[in-house]
C-alpha cells in the first residue's frame, strides 16, 4: 500500500459534483455550424490547409502544426468549409482568434483510419509522431502539446507514468465520467504512454470522492491483467494540480521552475490517455471531448461527448438552459474558470466544463475590502507561498520582490482568494503580475537585440568611413609622391590650368 502524503494548505469547497450525474455519458447533437479555432492548445497556432468552399470528411486535417510547440486541428464531422476568419473564442480576454468554420452536412462521413495494433513492437518515436499528427493536447485544461510532454529528452529518464484522475475542482465530472465509461481504453492508453516513455511503472491517482470511477478502473486493470497501481487519496482542493498530486503520491516535490520529468515522472490527464489509445489503436485524431454541462440554471445538467468547435450556446440549449437576467456562463470550473463573454464562442480541446450558475448559487463577488493581514491565504496556499506579500508586491509592480517570493510557483488555483475574508481577487493580481513580468522580459530581449544591431551598424558605418578616408589619404599620398618625382606641384598645376581656361572664356574687353 502506497503511503499517501499531505500537501500544505488546500480548501474544502462544496463539491456539487452529483448535479451533473457523473458516469452517464450522452452524445451531444452535431450542430449545424462548427467553429474550430486554430489555436486550441498552448503554443503556436496551427496553419489552415483547407480553403473556403472545400468539402471535408470527418477526421480530415484542417490545419497543420507549425513547429514543435503546435498541434494540428481535424474536422469533427463531414461538411463544407464556410469561412476562415476571426471569430470570438472562449478566452478570458473576450478577443477573437482565427477559426475554421464548417457547415456540417449531417451525414457524418468519416475517413477510414488505420491504427497501429502492434504498438508494443513499434518504435516509440513513431508513436509520438502519430500522437502529434492526431492533434492531441493535454485535455486537463492547459492544452500542453502531448507529443512534447512525451519527449522529455535523453537527459531525463522516466520511472513513473502518473495518470491524474483527481479532478478536484467543484462541479466538474468530465474525467470521472470518462474513467467510468472508458476505463478499458484508459488502461490501454496508459500502457501505450508507458511504452513510449519506457516508464517502469504506471500509477493512476483518483480522489476518494469518485468510488464508481475507482471501482471501474480497478475492474479494467484486472481485466487487462496489468500491473498498474491504483492509488486513492482524500478529497481536497487543489490536489489535482500536477505538482500537488506528485507530492501526495510520492512525497517528492517538483523543483521550483522545473517539470515533473526532472524527478522521473510524467503526469497526464485520463482524457489524454484515452485520446492516445484512440490515436494509436484506431488511428483516429482528436475531434471530440467530454464536457460537463452543469449549474442550477440548467434543467438537464449532464456530461456530453461533443464535437470540438460546437458553439457554447448549442450545448447550453441541449442542457435546457433557463437563462436569468445577466446569466453568467463559466468556462472551466468555479475556482479556475472564467466568464465567457460571447456564447457563440466554441468549445475547444481544453473545455472540460461549462457552468451556468444561478445568481444565488454563485453570487457575484462583493467589492474587495482592504487586506487585514489575517494570513488565511498563506495557510490555504498549496504551493507554500505568501499570497498576501505577493498581493502587495503585485500592486506595487515590484518585479524583483515578486520573483523573490516565487510568483511563478503560483498555480493560480484560487484557494487564497476563496478563503480571503476581504474578498480580494488575489489570483487576478498574480495573473496580471505574471503577464507584466513576461511582457517586460520579452521587451528586454527585444531591446537587447536592437542595441546589438544598432551597435553593429554603427561599427560598420565607422569602418566604412575609415576605409574611405584611408583610400583618400592613399590617393593623396600617391599624387604627392608623383609630384615630388616630377618636380611639380599638382595642385599648383591645376590652379594654373583653371586660370588659363578662365582667361580663354573671358575674352579681353
Amino acid at each position, binding site marked *: 500500500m502506497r503511503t499517501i502524503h499531505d500537501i500544505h494548505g488546500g480548501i474544502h469547497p462544496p463539491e456539487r459534483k452529483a448535479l451533473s450525474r457523473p458516469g452517464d455519458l450522452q452524445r451531444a447533437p452535431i450542430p449545424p455550424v462548427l467553429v474550430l479555432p486554430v489555436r486550441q492548445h498552448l503554443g503556436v497556432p496551427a496553419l489552415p490547409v483547407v480553403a473556403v468552399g472545400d468539402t471535408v470528411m470527418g477526421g480530415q486535417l484542417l490545419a497543420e502544426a507549425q513547429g514543435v510547440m503546435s498541434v494540428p486541428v481535424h474536422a469533427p464531422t463531414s461538411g463544407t468549409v464556410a469561412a476562415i476568419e476571426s471569430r470570438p473564442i472562449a478566452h478570458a480576454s473576450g478577443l477573437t482568434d482565427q477559426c475554421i468554420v464548417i457547415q456540417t452536412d449531417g451525414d457524418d462521413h468519416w475517413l477510414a483510419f488505420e491504427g497501429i495494433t502492434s504498438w508494443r513492437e513499434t518504435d516509440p518515436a513513431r508513436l509520438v509522431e502519430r500522437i502529434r499528427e492526431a492533434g492531441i493536447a493535454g485535455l486537463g485544461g492547459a492544452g500542453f502539446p502531448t507529443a512534447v510532454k512525451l519527449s522529455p529528452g535523453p537527459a531525463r529518464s522516466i520511472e513513473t507514468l502518473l495518470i491524474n484522475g483527481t479532478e478536484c475542482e467543484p462541479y466538474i465530472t468530465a474525467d470521472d465520467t470518462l474513467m467510468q465509461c472508458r476505463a478499458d481504453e484508459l488502461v490501454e492508453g496508459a500502457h501505450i504512454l508507458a511504452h513510449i516513455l519506457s516508464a517502469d511503472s504506471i500509477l493512476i491517482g483518483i480522489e476518494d470522492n469518485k468510488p464508481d470511477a475507482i471501482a471501474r478502473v480497478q475492474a479494467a486493470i484486472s481485466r487487462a491483467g496489468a500491473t498498474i497501481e491504483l492509488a486513492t487519496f482524500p478529497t481536497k482542493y487543489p490536489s489535482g494540480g500536477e505538482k500537488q498530486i506528485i507530492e501526495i503520491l510520492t512525497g517528492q516535490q517538483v523543483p521550483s521552475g522545473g517539470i515533473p520529468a526532472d524527478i522521473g515522472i510524467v503526469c497526464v490527464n485520463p482524457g489524454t490517455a484515452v485520446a492516445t489509445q484512440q490515436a494509436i489503436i484506431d488511428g483516429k485524431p482528436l475531434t471530440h471531448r467530454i464536457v460537463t454541462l452543469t449549474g442550477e440554471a440548467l434543467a438537464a445538467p449532464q456530461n456530453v461527448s461533443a464535437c470540438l468547435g460546437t458553439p457554447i450556446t448549442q450545448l447550453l440549449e441541449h442542457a435546457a438552459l433557463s437563462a436569468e437576467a445577466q446569466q453568467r456562463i463559466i468556462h472551466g470550473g468555479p475556482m479556475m474558470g472564467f466568464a465567457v463573454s460571447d456564447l457563440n464562442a466554441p468549445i475547444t480541446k481544453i473545455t472540460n466544463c461549462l457552468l451556468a450558475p444561478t445568481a444565488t448559487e454563485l453570487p457575484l463577488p462583493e467589492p474587495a475590502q482592504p487586506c487585514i493581514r489575517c494570513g488565511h491565504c498563506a495557510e490555504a496556499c498549496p504551493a507554500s507561498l505568501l499570497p498576501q506579500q505577493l498581493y502587495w508586491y503585485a500592486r506595487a509592480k515590484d518585479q524583483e520582490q515578486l520573483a523573490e517570493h516565487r510568483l511563478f510557483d503560483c498555480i493560480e488555483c484560487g484557494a487564497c482568494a476563496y478563503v480571503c475574508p*476581504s474578498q480580494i481577487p488575489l489570483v*487576478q493580481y498574480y*495573473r496580471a503580475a505574471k503577464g507584466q513580468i513576461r511582457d517586460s522580459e520579452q521587451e528586454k530581449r527585444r*531591446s537587447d537585440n*536592437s542595441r546589438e544591431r544598432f551597435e553593429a*551598424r554603427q561599427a560598420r558605418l565607422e569602418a566604412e568611413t575609415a576605409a574611405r578616408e584611408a583610400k583618400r589619404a592613399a590617393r593623396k599620398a600617391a599624387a604627392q609622391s608623383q609630384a615630388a618625382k616630377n618636380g611639380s606641384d599638382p595642385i599648383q598645376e591645376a590652379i594654373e590650368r583653371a586660370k588659363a581656361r578662365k582667361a580663354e572664356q573671358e575674352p579681353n574687353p
Partner: protein
Amino acid sequence: MLAMLSDQPLLAALTALLGLGATFGALLGFAAIRFRVEGNPISDQINALLPQTQCGQCGYPGCRPYSEAIADGDSINKCPPGGEETIQALADLLDVEPQPLDAEHGVEKEPVVAWIREDECIGCTKCIQACPVDAILGAAKVMHTVIADECTGCDLCIEPCPVDCIDLIPRKEGISFWHWSLPEDRASRYDVIATDAATRDAA
C-alpha cells in the same frame, strides 16, 4: 631621531600623520591605475534601461548618446517610447525625482512596427539607409521589406520614403499579447465606515 620625536610630541604627531597620508595616498594611486574602469559604467546602466528604439526623439542620434547625455546630467524625461516606466526606472537608478514625460519630444504611444506596402515600393533603398537597426531588406530597384522581429518602430524610415508606402502598424495586437490586467483598485478606497456602506448600497 627617536629621542627627538619623544621630546617633541607635536612633531611626532605630524610625522605620523604625514606617514599615514603618504602610505594611503600611494595605495589609492596604485588602485586607481590598477583597477581602472574603461568607459562609463553609469551610462552603460542607463543604456540598459532605455528601450533601444534608436528613434532620436530625445534629440540625440540613438539611445547610447542619450544615455551618455543623461550620465552627464541631462534630464531623464525625453524618451517617449520608454514612457513613464523608463522614467521611473531611470529615477530609481540615478536616485532622482521622476519627472513627467517632456511633451516637447513626443508622447507615449503603443509599440508599432513598420510595414512596407510592397506593391507601391519602388526600390529606392532610402529607407534601408535610414533604418538604425538594419531591419529593412532589399536592394536597388527591387522591393524592400521589413523584418518585423527586428524593427523597433522608430519611424525614421517614414520620412525618407518618396512614395509614402510605409505604414506603422501596432505591434502588440491579438490574443497572444493579451494578459490579465490588475483588478480595479477598490481596496485602496478605505470605505469601511458604516455610513459609507449605506450610501454605496443606495447608489
